[in-house]
């Protein structure tokens, strides 16, 4: 009986090998179609993997995974054990490996097989304590498998041992697709296992808003949005500055047309929500047949919006320069352009840097509006994770990415403003100078005449918040008016 079996096996194996070579030559499908009909070998029905962690069905590298293999033995085959060779970089804890055999009509009889497991050099051997009943349907479950974090298609190879000790290789097993798993995802997973995290997450509020494992896994995703947002402001702000300066000069121009254009522009842009401007640009332009990619269009819209605010900041700055500075320059024979370029603007720059920084902060925050049109910036990236996890934590991560820029800058604004303020009080105008005998009158002329305006402007800006910065009319200097400038 045994000999016959063996002989038959050999013949069949040879035949099968022939078939396989045919299959290799022609098509893989042929093998699948033909093999079951010649169910000589142990026939793999399934070889899959599932993550142990519930939630996602994706198999991730570096995460504990369960491999399930199922196979049908030939009616006359007695299987004594199976062996799997795991791909390189894969680890597993063999202790929990289970083998089940299903027999009988409709495979309704379930037998848990008593197994001894040996794991060495990536080779997992499952030996049944006694050869199993012939023709069984076997299921082997290997727990706590960790595939390489790199991910990719993982190819297991298998073999089985017959009751007589013959070892036969299994046909090629289906590959398991493993997604790469980053450091952050691994960290997130290991966090999720920690006891303190579990008790932390037992508080609904903490779980929703500050789930440590979601926090960690959100970081790399939201970081890409952070880079995008930085990229947008880094392009938009330098564009907005010259445009804003041009607008402010136009607004103070003698020529009514220029003044009108600039005033209308500034009023319309400042008088409508940025959100609406983004919608009009992103939905209107394509309809008009103008196709601009998302990134440059976002940059343009933000730059155009910001330039209107910068215009008012520059105007307030220029007007806070005392009239005496214009007069002194003009009395020396300098023309209007020279006066602006060499006397007024250099002084203005120093004064408007704090307010400009505030405007930069606003612009940076305003990049979030582009989420509405699908730009993958911070909020949009956070939103995708929120949608898949149901946790609000990614939004908190997003908030952190805003704060790491805005908080230091706000500090810078504060320092600049206090320095400016102390300069102004240092210059102190007439009163202080008179009250102090032999005072090294630190006052320059602008300080004396313009300190009123300068200080008022600085105070109004000192709040550095949206309201103050976005309402430069409140901070307008009492310096020179356009009419006075024109008259010079």
């Amino acid at each position: 009986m045994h000999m016959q079996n063996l002989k038959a096996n050999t013949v069949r194996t040879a035949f099968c090998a022939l078939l396989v070579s045919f299959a290799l030559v022609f098509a893989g499908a042929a093998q699948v179609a033909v093999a079951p009909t010649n169910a000589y070998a142990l026939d793999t029905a399934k070889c899959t993997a599932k993550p142990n962690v519930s939630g996602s069905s994706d198999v991730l590298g570096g995460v504990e995974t369960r491999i399930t293999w199922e196979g049908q033995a030939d009616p006359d085959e007695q299987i004594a054990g199976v062996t799997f060779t795991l791909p390189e970089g894969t680890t597993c804890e063999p202790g929990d490996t289970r083998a089940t055999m299903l027999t009988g009509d409709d495979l309704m009889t379930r037998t848990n097989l008593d197994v001894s497991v040996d794991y060495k050099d990536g080779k997992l051997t499952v030996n049944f304590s006694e050869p199993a009943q012939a023709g069984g349907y076997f299921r082997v479950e290997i727990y706590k498998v960790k595939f390489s974090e790199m991910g990719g298609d993982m190819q297991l190879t298998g073999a089985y041992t017959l009751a007589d000790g013959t070892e036969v290789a299994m046909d090629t097993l289906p590959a398991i697709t493993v997604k790469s798993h980053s450091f952050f995802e691994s960290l997130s997973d290991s966090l999720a296992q920690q006891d303190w995290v579990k008790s932390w997450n037992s508080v609904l509020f903490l779980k929703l808003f500050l789930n440590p494992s979601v926090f960690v896994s959100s970081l790399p995703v939201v970081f890409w949005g952070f880079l995008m947002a930085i990229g947008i402001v880094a392009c938009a702000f330098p564009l907005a500055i010259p445009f804003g300066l041009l607008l402010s000069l136009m607004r103070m121009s003698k020529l009514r047309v220029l003044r009108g254009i600039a005033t209308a522009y500034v009023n319309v842009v400042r008088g409508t929500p940025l959100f609406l401007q983004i919608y009009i640009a992103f939905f209107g332009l394509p309809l008009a047949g103008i196709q601009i990619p998302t990134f440059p269009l976002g940059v343009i819209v933000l730059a155009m919006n910001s330039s209107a605010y910068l215009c008012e900041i520059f105007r307030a700055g220029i007007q806070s320069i005392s009239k005496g500075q214009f007069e002194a320059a003009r009395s020396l024979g300098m023309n209007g352009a020279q006066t602006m370029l060499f006397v007024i603007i250099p002084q203005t720059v120093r004064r408007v840097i704090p307010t400009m920084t505030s405007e930069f902060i606003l612009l940076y925050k305003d990049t979030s509006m582009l989420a509405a049109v699908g730009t993958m910036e911070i909020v949009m990236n956070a939103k995708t994770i929120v949608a898949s996890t149901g946790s609000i934590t990614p939004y908190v991560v997003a908030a952190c990415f805003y704060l790491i820029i805005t908080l230091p800058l706000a500090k810078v604004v504060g320092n600049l403003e206090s320095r400016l303020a102390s300069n102004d009080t240092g210059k102190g105008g007439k009163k202080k100078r008179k009250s102090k005998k032999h005072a090294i009158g630190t006052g320059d002329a602008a300080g004396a005449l313009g300190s009123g305006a300068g200080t008022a402007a600085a105070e109004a800006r000192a709040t550095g918040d949206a309201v103050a910065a976005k309402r430069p009319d409140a901070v307008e200097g009492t310096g020179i008016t356009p009419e006075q400038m024109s008259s010079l």
Partner: protein
Amino acid sequence: MTETMKNLTNETADGAGEGVAHVATNGQAADDGKPIIRICDLHKSYDDLVVLRGVDLEVKRGEVVVILGPSGSGKSTLLRCVNLLEQPTGGQVFFEDTEITAKGTDINAVRAKVGMVFQSFNLFPHLTAKGNVMLAQQKVLKRSKEEAAKVAVEQLTKVGLAERVDYKPSQLSGGQQQRVAIARALAMDPHVMLFDEATSALDPELVRDVLGVMKELARGGMTMIVVTHEMGFARDVADRVIFMDGGVIVEEGTPDEVFDHPKSDRTKDFLGHIR
């Protein structure tokens, strides 16, 4: 202070320095009797407020004219009309042979020849003393950087600030700042200098330095129109004193005439209050 005086004395002793030499030629030119500035029936009003109501004035080359008057009398406005920092609403202003009130006049070219010193100094705070004096030389007179720097140092030395050339205005006292402002105007080789209450914003002890510079300038033959409240300076330096009130010239004459024998009651009243 002593240093300033020493510098000034040296200056007088040597008689050197381009600025002074230049001014001296202006002084000699005074002999031709032709006015360098002529103001005819000048009017100025802001909306309803009438500031000047018909002022006639001629200033000869080398002459020092001091304008006195209570505040609001229009003396500063008159001065500012000379270089069109204020646009007159009526009348004419002639500088040398040009009618500067006429349309199409290159006012910048005229202003380059008319130096002005302000009550509030109006130094450019972002530039050093030297930078302040250099800027217009380079931009308006198109002097090279080296030449402008050379002239700047000369002029600053003349006003006694040789050691302060690299200071920012905020590091200088009021008197020092005003002297930088004077140097800045003089560096343009002006044909006439206008002083608009140049010492009014200064502590009394700092006033002396500035007045010293102005006196020296007057002795050098510079044509000057000075609006001031410094009666002593007016008496010492002025060739002619003008008393203004209510937008018109009330009295005009030599310092002796105006100070010691004022004709109008208004002048007497004003001078009485001053003393």
